Every structure is written in structure tokens, then in C-alpha cells.
């Protein structure tokens, strides 16, 4: 195997990985702002993609109107999810919150498919399908666009979490009770984090929908997104970006070597193995906070 091919695998892996990061940012956001594991991000992403399509196709808006409008709608939905589903479970054991987000995921997926049907559609963003040539290396344009979106979101959230609102959200994740005691509206903060994650879902839904079509397979990104989030440390956005790149490369290069050995389809296996190894070796991930124990 020559070096150029390996480089191509690595670069395309890294780009795909950044798209996983794009998805994982939604998980990290909510964990960072409320210590709640969000297993509904797959359903949210799928719903977001369908909403964009519904606005673009069924209503007939141009995409540059449909996407921001969908983001706005999803922003509202995020607040709604907090208000309806999560507020009453604040302070309950993690297993119930986990189940709640799983239930939401199942509901969102079922409802989306019941409304719009399961046949795959494409977004048609208008990004060309002919690959870019960088020296001898082929690079997909849409992956490049997605990676740019991921990095832009990363930058935006980096700034956001240093702002006063962002600091308040981090305070909520640390201690609900103490946040209430100094007048932080925990409910509004958690709602905001779900709203932002829903907006991230629009970005992920559009990009992934363009790549693999808008259908229920979008919700299967959850395992990859979770792996990226955990590997990066559940509450680190920088971690999500870097872990995405790492997972993308490991997956792409690893699958190239493993697939001939096992007869294909080793990507899922590699992702699951990375998740297991991360939790076993370094549960707080590459950049996650460990719970501080004072000596």
C-alpha cells in the first residue's frame, strides 16, 4: 500500500470524523450545560433533516430560507423538550433521564417517519459531486463543507461558553442546587442547551442528509456520535473535534486493513471497540473533566 493512498484514507477519514464531531457537538453541549446524557440526538438530527426538506420541497422555499427557518423551529422544539420531558426529571437518577432521552429518540424517529415516510430523499445542497483534487488525493467537496461547518460551530461555542450566559450554563452542569440558590434559572439554561443542540442537529442533518440521503439511517449516527463525545470527554467541545478526527482516521484506515480479513463491515466494530476501550481505560476521555477530588 502506498503512502499517497494512506494519506488519502487519513485525510478523508479526518474529514468524515469532523462530520461525526458535528453530530457529537449536540451531545456535548447538553452534557456540558446540564450533565444530562442526550441519547435523542439521533432522532433530533433525523427530524431536523426532514423539517428542512419539508420546508424546501413541500412548502417550496429555497434552501437558504428553509435551513434557517428549520433551525428556528428546532430551537423552539429544544425548549419544548426541556419544558415537557426533562423538567420533571431534574435531580432523578441518571437511568431515568437516560431512558427518557431514549424514549424521546424513539418517539421522534417514529413520529418523523409516520409523518413523512421512510423513503430516502436527498437534500441537493448544490455542492458538486465531483471530488477536489489536492495533488494526487481525492477529497469530497461536501465533506469539506461539513468539516468547515463543524469547525465554525466549534469556534462559536468556544466563544459562547466563555460568555456570561455560557458560564451560567457550565455552572448549572456543576450543581443544580447551587445554581438555583444564586438565582440562575436552571430550567431556562437546560432548555437553552437543548435548543442549541437542536440547531446543531439541523447542521448535522443537512450535511449528513446530503451525503447519505435523508432517511432513518440518520439516527444510526448516534453510536458514532457517542463514541466521539466519550473519547473527547463528554463535556469538552474541543475534545469532540479532536476525537472526531481521531475516530475518523482510525475507522477509515482500520477498516481498509480489517475489511479484507473479516469480509467487510468492520467499521461498526472499530467504533464499538474504541468506545469500550475509552471507557475502560480513560472514562473521562481525552479532555473531559474528572470530578475534582481535593487532596
Amino acid at each position: 500500500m502506498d503512502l499517497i493512498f494512506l494519506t488519502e484514507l487519513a485525510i478523508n477519514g479526518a474529514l468524515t470524523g469532523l462530520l461525526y464531531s458535528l453530530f457529537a457537538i449536540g451531545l456535548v453541549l447538553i452534557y456540558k450545560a446540564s450533565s444530562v446524557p442526550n441519547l435523542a440526538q439521533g432522532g433530533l438530527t433525523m427530524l431536523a433533516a426532514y423539517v428542512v426538506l419539508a420546508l424546501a420541497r413541500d412548502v417550496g422555499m429555497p434552501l437558504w430560507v428553509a435551513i434557517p427557518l428549520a433551525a428556528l423551529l428546532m430551537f423552539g422544539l429544544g425548549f419544548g423538550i426541556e419544558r415537557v420531558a426533562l423538567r420533571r426529571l431534574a435531580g432523578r437518577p441518571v437511568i431515568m433521564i437516560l431512558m427518557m432521552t431514549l424514549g424521546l429518540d424513539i418517539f421522534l424517529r417514529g413520529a418523523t417517519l409516520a409523518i413523512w415516510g421512510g423513503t430516502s430523499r436527498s437534500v441537493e445542497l448544490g455542492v458538486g459531486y465531483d471530488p477536489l483534487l489536492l495533488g494526487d488525493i481525492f477529497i469530497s467537496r461536501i465533506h469539506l463543507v461539513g468539516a468547515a461547518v463543524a469547525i465554525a460551530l466549534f469556534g462559536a461555542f468556544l466563544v459562547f461558553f466563555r460568555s456570561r450566559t455560557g458560564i451560567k450554563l457550565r455552572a448549572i452542569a456543576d450543581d443544580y442546587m447551587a445554581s438555583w440558590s444564586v438565582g440562575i434559572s436552571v430550567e431556562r439554561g437546560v432548555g437553552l442547551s437543548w435548543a442549541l443542540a437542536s440547531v446543531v442537529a439541523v447542521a448535522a442533518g443537512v450535511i449528513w442528509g446530503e451525503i447519505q440521503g435523508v432517511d432513518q439511517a440518520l439516527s444510526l449516527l448516534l453510536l458514532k456520535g457517542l463514541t466521539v463525545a466519550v473519547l473527547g470527554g463528554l463535556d469538552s467541545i474541543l475534545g469532540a473535534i479532536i476525537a472526531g478526527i481521531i475516530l475518523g482516521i482510525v475507522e477509515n484506515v482500520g477498516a481498509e486493513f480489517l475489511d479484507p480479513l473479516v469480509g467487510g463491515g468492520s467499521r461498526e466494530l472499530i467504533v464499538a471497540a474504541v468506545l469500550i476501550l475509552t471507557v475502560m481505560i480513560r472514562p473521562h476521555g481525552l479532555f473531559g473533566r474528572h470530578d475534582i477530588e481535593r487532596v
Partner: protein
Amino acid sequence: MSIQEKSEALPILSMNSVEVLYDNVMLAIKGVSIQVPRGDMVALLGSNGAGKSTTLKAISGLLKAERGRVSRGEIRFDGTDITEMLAQKRVEMGICHVIEGRRVFEHLTPDENLTAAAPMSMSRSALNAEKEKIYTYFPRLAERRNSAAGYLSGGEQQMLAIGRALVTQPRLLMLDEPSLGLAPFLVEEIFGIISQINRQEGMSVLLVEQNALAALEIVSEGYLIENGRVVMHGTAEALKANSDIQEFYLGGGEGTDFHNVKHYSRRKRWLS
């Protein structure tokens, strides 16, 4: 100001026979009435589980987070009925509760802790001025303003928790066991700062303490709570002089005279 005048002036906080139910079944406090005169420091004394923390939570609205509610009575702050108000609204009105156990935001720096507590309406420059003021009260915090609060020592965390409450511009500061687990010299330092803030800013303080000796040194009056009821109320001097208080809370008194024990428990039974 004579006692007469004081009682006529509108107290900043008054609680009238408040009852608190947890989970709709457990009665934690049973008809507590407390008044905090404007600009005064008042102590709430009592043993573990007497209902002191519950009283504070009823005032700050944090009961809801623990599935408790005020089932009877009313709480007035500055003349307004706040019994059913959201915790967040009460903080805006000027009640801030420093909860038990130094719960600072561990993964945030002290600086960010103070920022997190600042109301959104506060301008950036006002916030910075406020921070500087707090750092002059607690110079130890200034030194470590940019390291994670989880790594501060116990005393520093308590100072940070109090500083964080001060950012919310309270008119009534409620402290729940600030001396818990701290070395005596730190307790003295913290209490000194609290009374300094009280004098300089005219901030009213409601202090919950098990360390009655230290508390009675700085407050002007005190309430004694047992089994969810107020069993004694008086000025700090009167309480310090009371033989029961001395016996049970100050560790002094007439040694282990069993007459007094009987006398006290009889009285408790009568009251409860």
C-alpha cells in the same frame, strides 16, 4: 433604637407560622415564626434535624428542588408575600441563600463563579467593580481567582460561596452553617467579614449555626429551633445568659447536672 421602635419598623423578613411538608407527607417545620429586622443580624440555632435548613429553604424557595412546599403560613420579604414565588424571583428581590456545605461550582474558577451568579442586568463594569469589592473582602480569593474552585481549601470555598452570594446584590443574606468543618481561626475570620459587610452595607443577615458560641458573638438576636418549632427567642445577651442554652449549645453551664437535663427535656415536651 429601643425594642419598642424596632418591632414597629417593618422587618425585612417575617415568617408567620410556616409549615413545610416534604413529599406531601413529612412535616419538617411546624409553625415557625421569625422576624429579621432591617439591617440586623439574626441567628437561628438548634441541633441537627431541628428544621433550621428547611426554614432557610422555605425563605429562599429552594424547597421545590427537594419536593417540599410551604403548606401553611406566609413569608413576607420587605412587605411582599413571597410564599409561592420562584426561587429565581426571590434572588432578584434581594434574598440570597448560601447553601450548606460550600457548594461552589467546582469546575469553574472563582472568577467565573462570581460571573455565574451575577444577574444578566448587571453591566460588565458594574460586575468588575463588584468582583473587586469581593476580592477586597476576601483577599485570599484574589490570589487564586483563576484556578478551579474545586481545588480551593475549605475556608476559601466558603469565602467564595459567600462572595458568590454577594454578587447577587442581596438585601438579606442567609448563611447555612458557614463554620461547618472549618478551623476555629477561619470561622473567626469569616464571621468577622460577615459582620463587617453587615455594618458597611447595612445588609441584613440570617445565620444558621450549630456553633452557637461563635454565632451569638456577632448577632443581635437569636431563635432556638427544636423539632421544627421555635422554642426560644431573645437578644444575643439574653440567650447567652440562659442556662439551658449554656448547657446544651455553649458547652458551659453548670456541668452535668441532671436536674437541668430533666428540666430541659420536660420543657421540650411541653413545647412540642
